């Protein structure tokens, strides 16, 4: 190891310093509760039907894929 490599960790520690106060200042449970109560994003069933129909079209008519991609 290069001798100056051994001095790098010390230099970093002197320059940045460890976190002196890593204690939590407040109870995070209310935020956690709010996170848990947030409704999950759900797609309506007809959206799934539409996705399935498009996939079925691609399977039955693969030649249509480039034409669809061209629109994007």
């Amino acid at each position, binding site marked *: 190891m290069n001798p*100056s490599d051994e001095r*790098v960790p010390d230099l*970093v520690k002197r*320059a940045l*310093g460890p*976190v002196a106060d890593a*204690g939590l200042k407040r109870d995070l449970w209310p935020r*956690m509760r709010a996170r848990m109560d947030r409704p999950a994003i759900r797609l309506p069933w007809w959206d799934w039907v539409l996705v399935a129909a498009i996939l079925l079209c691609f399977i039955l008519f693969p030649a249509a894929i480039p034409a669809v991609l061209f629109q994007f």
Partner: protein
Amino acid sequence: MELLEQFARGDAEAFESLFRQFQGEVYGWIVRIVRDPGAAEDLTVETFWRIYRARSRFDPRRGFGPWARRIATNLALDHLSTRRNETSLEDGCPPACLRCSPPDPALAADVRRKVAAAFGRLPVKLRVAATLAMIEETPYGDIADALGISIGTVKSRVFRAVRLLRGDLQRMGVEP
């Protein structure tokens, strides 16, 4: 053990008990990695949200703390990766609300700034290993457990971080 089993079965009160018991520990671990109290709070909540969602896969025979720490570490890594260009370390100043041990007054402000900038430019995986090992002096075994890698890999990452830092600092005119 009973509490952990209740949690694994989906008991909300058991989860609340575990949250209250471990939130400080998880937050403390995250803030040492991301060095931003606000982000650490958000990531603590996100960590427990993922824990809650994955409760059915939790094995009560294995400790809750190490499992939580592993998830927290992965989230902190993701956070640092996505916020790479905004990371406060890069401009040499930690967030105002983060209380760090004061830097060595004998070290010139210019050198401090350059060291912080070089440190912020490290690849995220190396930076996390270096932060925990070099700045926080966390035992290699704890770092390895949290990152899900071997102690040898931790040492290798720290070694590579040191080499990169030395080269970067020398380019900026700082001789370690």
